[in-house]
């Protein structure tokens, strides 16, 4: 099963490689990983999308917690979080397909951020499922290039989750 895990880490030298090599060294999967500073100084937040059965996910959580530079780990498996992802998508857009691309962009409330006579570059934001959906529609028209950020997640409700 797919899980989204947030990890709050100290901004120490080498912390990203510690987390990444934990996953590769123990044979855990990473579907996506994002990392950036938080509003608290010295802290960064990683969002990792991973897969595995309950036993593996329990190990992933524990092993992450065991890393000295990891402050907190939250497993957002149970729909307790809002997830968003952004994709930059370059599609072929010539003659008759130009209008079709624009229609899809409109339906998904995406944006055109670069235009040439032969292509559109689209910025799409939404849940990972929504990104998958727009890609499914655009793919037959000719995907030239795709960049996805990977999901970021934040817990639902009023409570803020800090260090």
């Amino acid at each position, binding site marked *: 099963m797919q899980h989204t895990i947030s990890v709050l880490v100290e901004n120490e030298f080498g912390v990203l490689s510690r987390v990444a090599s934990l996953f590769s060294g123990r044979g855990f999967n990473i579907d996506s990983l994002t990392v950036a500073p938080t509003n608290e100084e010295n802290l960064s937040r990683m969002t990792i999308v991973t897969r595995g059965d309950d036993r593996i996910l329990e*190990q992933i959580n524990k092993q992450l917690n065991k890393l000295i530079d990891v*402050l907190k780990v939250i497993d957002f498996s149970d729909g307790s979080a809002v997830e968003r992802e952004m994709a930059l998508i370059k599609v072929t857009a010539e003659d008759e397909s130009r209008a079709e691309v624009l229609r899809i962009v409109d339906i998904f409330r995406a944006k055109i951020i670069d235009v040439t006579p032969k292509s559109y570059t689209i910025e799409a934001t939404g849940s990972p499922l929504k990104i998958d959906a727009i890609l499914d529609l655009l793919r037959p028209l000719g995907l030239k290039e795709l960049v996805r950020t990977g999901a970021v997640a934040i817990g639902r409700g009023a409570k803020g989750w800090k260090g």
Partner: protein
Amino acid sequence: MKMNGARIMLECLKKEGVDTIFGYPGGTVINIYDELFGIKGINHILPRHEQGGTHAADGYARASGKVGVAIATSGPGATNTVTGIATAYMDSVPMVIITGQVPTALIGNDAFQEVDIIGITRSCTKHSFLVRDVNELAGIMKKAFYIARTGRPGPVLVDLPKDVQIAQTEFVYPETVEIRSYKPTVEGHPKQIERAVEMLLASHKPVLYVGGGVILGNAADELTTLARMLIAPVTTTLMGLGAFPGNDRLSLGMPGMHGSYCANMAMTHSDMIVAIGARFDDRVTGKLATFAPHARIIHIDVDPTSIKKNVRVDLPIVGDVKDVLSKMIRQLKKSDEKLKSFVSGISAWDEEINGWKEKHPINYKNSSSIIKPQYVIQKLRELSDDDAIISTDVGQHQMWTAQFFQFNRPRTLLSSGGLGTMGYGLPAAMGAQAAFPGRQVITICGDGGVQMNIQEMATLVQNRLPVKIVILNNNFLGMVRQWQELFFEKRYSQTCLELPIDFIKLAEAYGAKGFRATKPDEVENTIKQGFAHNGPVIMEFMIAREEKVLPMVPAGASLNEMVLNA
């Protein structure tokens, strides 16, 4: 007072109470060695190889319970420590390894003798630090020692660039250490402990399955008290040997691949396994699907990742084993009535276990014409001091030692259990002897593995460390040969060492002494001569070449599918 980084590092060691370090000089640590010159309060031992130095620091730590310290120069010096670090990591040994590094400005430029040692050791250290500013050095050293010794202990590497060693600053050693992202759980959860005691008292066939954590956590006394209160049998893993007296009636010996029949049968038939500082290693469990099919499992460990990693657990308790065991004992004292009825009900289980013990005790067939290795081990036990420290290398001799040398006290067996590192025995004994100059220290090795760090003979002689080196010489890489015999139709591919080494001459070449026994009736005298000599000694025993370690659970088989005599 203002000092340079090299000096600060050494002063930090003193503040941590370090009296002995093992190190090897080189370009990027030359400033440390300059500061070390004539320093008081630190005994520096120069091994002949950085691997030897690192294992020595490990042996020092395992024997004494203190943090072991090793120093190496950058590049090849650092890479030579990797096997030693990985060995310590797998067995949770507290160590701090200081490596020199090229100057900060050159890092990443493929400078002379530059390696990314932090990257190389990332997966075999508990943590590591690159010191980039001399002002951070004292704080990092404090953290390194704190991390190494607390929680589940382990090796911590501090990579110290040359320019940081030269830079000057005021030396202030922090009084306290606070790492907000590192807070190992020490106290066991009281409710869980209460439930554990209830579960335990409701069982009929309990086994205490004890690992190295009990030794690392200094909880041997608590364990012994608990076992005797419950009259519960105790099986100790290789790493746990000595945590419970091997000569006690309740001791079952080792479980697993080369464990005793009674320990494996007890695990298989138990209805309650209490795992204490043990991690259900595959060498212990055998085939997981059939492991302890009737048992509920309570697992006590300081490291949450050990729990439920390999087997299902009915009741986990995360915490320091000493704390948890003392609380369990207190709880038991409060449940007096229940304890009484539990104890009175345990005799059936006791009988069952004794039946297994009698049916297939750990045994061997002695001979009057050829030296049996098991006989040598028994004689060594008989003739050595009660508090002798034994290190082993890796192979058949290691298993014979575990089976036949009865370990009665904690920290008297030093052996590479997790990594299984050949070449560990001799330097580990060297470290233990440095920690306890007055005690008898014996290393038991094979003729293969002893050659992997034989150069440390020189260190022993030079530093007057009177380690007794026992070589069980079968002229084979015996353990691999045994597998080839049993599972590869005796195709002895590259396991015959062929060239016989004259270990007596070798000892003499290093300025030590050598004794050899070729017949059973020479064994006792050889040991006596070796023990009587007051310097380092090699005692070589020409043993039955194709003797096997038995019983054996073949890899991947169930614990009750033991090969008892093949």
